[in-house]
């Protein structure tokens, strides 16, 4: 207790851990990398939000004169690209990083250095793409970058080069992370953590990694074709050479539609953690939630052409894709009902996280219903390329993904920082975001049905569009205020928030068993899991009566290593002998990994440099369009060699000290 008195604020799990800038540059700790993802992606959220504000200010009244048509094109392109690739995906990755090892009872991810590499590639790639603003040649062909608009014939500046190279770099980050998390989840679960006992967030994360692994190579190839066309004069998208004008659209949407589920499933996972905790009830229909997540992901690969009804694929293709699209509504609807039944009869607590969670259920349902509407080709032909579509995907992406990620941020902020976000500011944030969001996007349904086209920088007066656009713009300003409050909350609570302790919410899963923030090794003793809700088993067993458990007297878990039986754990539910090894209270001094004899990976700067050289290698290609091809080739070769040497140095250095 003396230690606790000496450290009045937070029981520092990290008192023996390195701090300072260097420790962040060299970190391989999944929790720190998660925090880096969190802060970086929220910074891009502010920037992408600013781009949206510019769009709404331009459209506030008819014939706006705030920005030029060229700038407007760059704004909506970068707003979409930023929000998809630089905000929602990496913000989800922040939670993957923090939570997957904690929820499955592991000490880190399977490849800690690869994890650091993923983050640095993301950081450098996102900076690279936005450098284009500085030379006023930001990407300007929409986040989907349809050919032939993006080919050299129609776009001779660097705008598209920044976009396609930037996406290629970011793809490396996502793929590396996906291999890492798949391995982590398959191979690092604590004893007893069967697949059907995994927390639902980890399940959704697991499914998302498969989507990433299977969807990203397709856009990689589509982008390679585009790069070859633009840099080396190939003919993939050259219609005069006989190329199929729809090749890009097919490849892009074979990636692009699974991408939609890459964006939403992590938020579904977070909300499936938040709702049971604040309803004091186990998740309704856990297995069905898992299976419907799988089904959504599976069907997600068979619906891509519903983005292309307007190109005229013929009645058979249209019908097929309409039917598969409508089918996806079934597992999604199942999830919505399961969340409602989770709350039904529960002991509800309306924390900020819970409010955002309920908002997801409500708003995503609206976006889902409009989605089923344009799953029907005749309806879609009316709605496509109008603001109705804009309304639809903002309801699912902002009302769905972002609301879920905000819920996750309020819920898990203590695991990042050890402190709680202010609930008072959170309430303001929630209501302003909720009202602003609906005020912005609900009128877009009407302006869209009245025929207002997307991606146009001005509209004329006297068509009845003024009022809807003014409402949308006011809504956007209200959202801006909510984001400022959120940003202030994030910064001020870091130092002044209430100390969370291990389990501030009374949550059921493993991550709440250990201190906030957790020590670098997470678990002093790897726990053995006997049900889906290990903490409720211990603290409020009445809540988990109906959940399947390992039963008393039953041999619980066989531990096999490489086919060799190394022992088993047979245990009754209740207080086991090893429990005292767990830090009992947050005031207890937390031992270092060295004191406990736990081997942890060494920090290293090498992943950062590999990521940097790789980004520079791609960036060198920009010189080709400046007429400096020899210099570009020199740059590519130099940085490729530097990257390879650094990679060798990384791979030949052991992860941790010999012991």
């Amino acid at each position, binding site marked *: 207790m003396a230690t606790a008195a000496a450290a009045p604020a937070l029981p520092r799990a990290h008192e023996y851990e390195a701090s300072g800038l260097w420790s962040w540059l060299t970190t391989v700790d999944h929790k720190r990398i998660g925090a880096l993802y969190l802060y970086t992606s929220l910074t891009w959220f502010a920037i992408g939000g600013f781009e949206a504000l510019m769009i709404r200010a331009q459209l506030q009244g008819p014939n706006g004169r705030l920005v030029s048509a060229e700038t407007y094109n760059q704004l909506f392109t970068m707003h979409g690209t930023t929000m998809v690739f630089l905000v929602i995906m990496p913000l989800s990755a922040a939670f993957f990083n923090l939570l997957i090892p904690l929820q499955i009872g592991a000490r880190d991810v*399977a*490849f800690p250095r690869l994890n650091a590499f993923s983050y640095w590639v993301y950081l450098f790639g996102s900076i690279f793409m936005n450098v284009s603003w500085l030379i006023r040649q930001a990407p300007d062909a929409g986040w989907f970058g349809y050919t032939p608009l993006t080919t050299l014939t129609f776009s001779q500046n660097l705008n598209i080069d920044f976009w396609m190279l930037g996406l290629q770099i970011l793809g490396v980050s996502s*793929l590396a992370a*996906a*291999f*890492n998390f*798949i*391995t982590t989840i*398959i*191979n*690092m679960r*604590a*004893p*007893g953590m069967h697949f059907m006992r995994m927390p639902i967030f980890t399940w959704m994360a697991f499914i998302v990694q498969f989507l990433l*692994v*299977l969807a*990203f*190579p*397709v856009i*990689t*190839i589509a982008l*390679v*074709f585009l790069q*070859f066309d633009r840099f080396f*004069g*190939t*003919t*993939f998208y050259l219609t005069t*050479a006989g*190329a*199929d004008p729809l*090749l890009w659209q097919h*490849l892009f949407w074979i990636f692009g539609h699974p991408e939609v589920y890459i964006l939403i499933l992590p938020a579904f996972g977070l909300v499936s953690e938040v709702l049971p905790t604040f309803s004091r009830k186990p998740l309704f229909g856990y297995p069905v939630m898992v299976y419907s997540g799988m089904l959504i992901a599976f069907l997600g690969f068979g619906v891509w052409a519903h983005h292309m009804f307007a190109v005229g694929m013929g009645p058979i293709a249209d019908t097929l894709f309409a039917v598969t699209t409508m089918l996806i509504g079934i597992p999604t609807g199942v999830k919505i009902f399961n969340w409602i039944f989770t709350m039904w009869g529960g002991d509800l607590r309306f924390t900020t996280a819970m409010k955002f969670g309920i908002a997801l259920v409500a708003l995503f349902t609206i976006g889902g219903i409009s989605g089923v509407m344009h799953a029907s080709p005749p309806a879609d032909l009316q709605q496509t390329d109008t603001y109705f579509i804009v309304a639809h995907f903002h309801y699912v992406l902002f009302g769905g993904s972002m609301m879920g990620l905000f819920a996750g941020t309020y819920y898990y902020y203590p695991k990042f920082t050890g402190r709680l976000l202010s609930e008072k500011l959170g309430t303001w944030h929630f209501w302003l975001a909720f009202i602003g969001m609906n005020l912005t996007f609900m009128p877009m349904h009407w302006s869209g049905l009245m025929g207002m086209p997307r991606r146009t920088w001005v509209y004329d007066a006297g068509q009845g569009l003024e009022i809807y656009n003014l409402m949308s713009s006011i809504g956007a300003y209200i959202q801006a205020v909510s984001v400022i409050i959120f940003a202030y909350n994030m910064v001020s609570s870091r130092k002044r928030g209430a100390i969370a302790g291990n389990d501030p919410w009374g949550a059921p899963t493993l991550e709440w068993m250990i201190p906030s923030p957790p020590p670098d090794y997470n678990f002093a*003793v*790897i726990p*053995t*899991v*006997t*049900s889906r809700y290990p903490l409720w088993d*211990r603290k409020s067993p009445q809540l988990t009566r109906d959940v399947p458990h*390992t039963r008393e007297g039953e041999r619980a878990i066989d*531990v*096999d*290593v490489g086919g060799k039986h*190394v022992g088993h*754990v047979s*245990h*009754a*539910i*209740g207080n*086991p*002998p*090893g*429990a005292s*090894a*767990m830090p009992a209270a947050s005031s207890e001094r937390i031992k270092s990994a060295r004191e406990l*004899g*736990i*081997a942890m990976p060494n920090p290293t700067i090498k992943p950062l440099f590999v990521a940097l050289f790789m980004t520079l290698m791609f960036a060198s290609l920009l010189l080709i369009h400046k007429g400096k091809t020899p210099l570009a080739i020199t740059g590519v070769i130099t940085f490729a060699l530097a990257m390879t040497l650094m990679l060798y140095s990384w791979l030949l250095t052991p992860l941790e000290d010999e*012991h």
Partner: protein
Amino acid sequence: MATTAVVGHGHPPTTTGLDHRKIAIWAFIGSECMLFTSLISTYLVYKGRSVSGPFPHEVCNPPQCATALKPILNIPVTSVSTFVLLMSSLAMVLALAAVENKDKPGWAGTGAWGRALASSRLWLAVTAILGATFLGFQAYEFTSFVHEGLTIRTNLFGSSFFTLTGFHGAHVTVGVLWLLTLLAIDVKRGLGPKDALLVDISALYWHFVDVVWIAIFTLVYLIR
């Protein structure tokens, strides 16, 4: 909630008992499947759509073409290079067996043949050399195509053919570098059974690249 000190320190055993790298390489191969699927699909979609020659299989005579064009794909030569690449997979299997059984002297029999079979250095080198030979064939093929007037810019066939086979060639190149790295480690300190995983995952990659070539050879060269 039962908690037991399964492993107090060091590393807990993995859930499946497999090494992390083994699972990661399978995930990687899954992703590579989609990469090559996209490339091969594009080649097939564009087959027969080129507005000008040279073409892969079709003969083109004036007046359809300015000059007479003969089919450009040289199936006999590519059959030889395909055989070379297939044999490299056999050598890879022998290299892995040699590393796995290093602590069992004489496992492959005694005498010169047995000693050769048990030499991991020999089979790693043979695999790398066969891979490099395949790349040599590909360099020859690319050069001769350019001489016959087919470059990556000429038509849809040229763009999709060179990109597809070039991507495969790049994968073989990475594989050869990987094998040479293993060979260097083997020469420096010797690879034993505890290093078998290093060879195992490179072998999985190598066989995968080989299987992809079988698909490419069939779909691009053999089927008209």
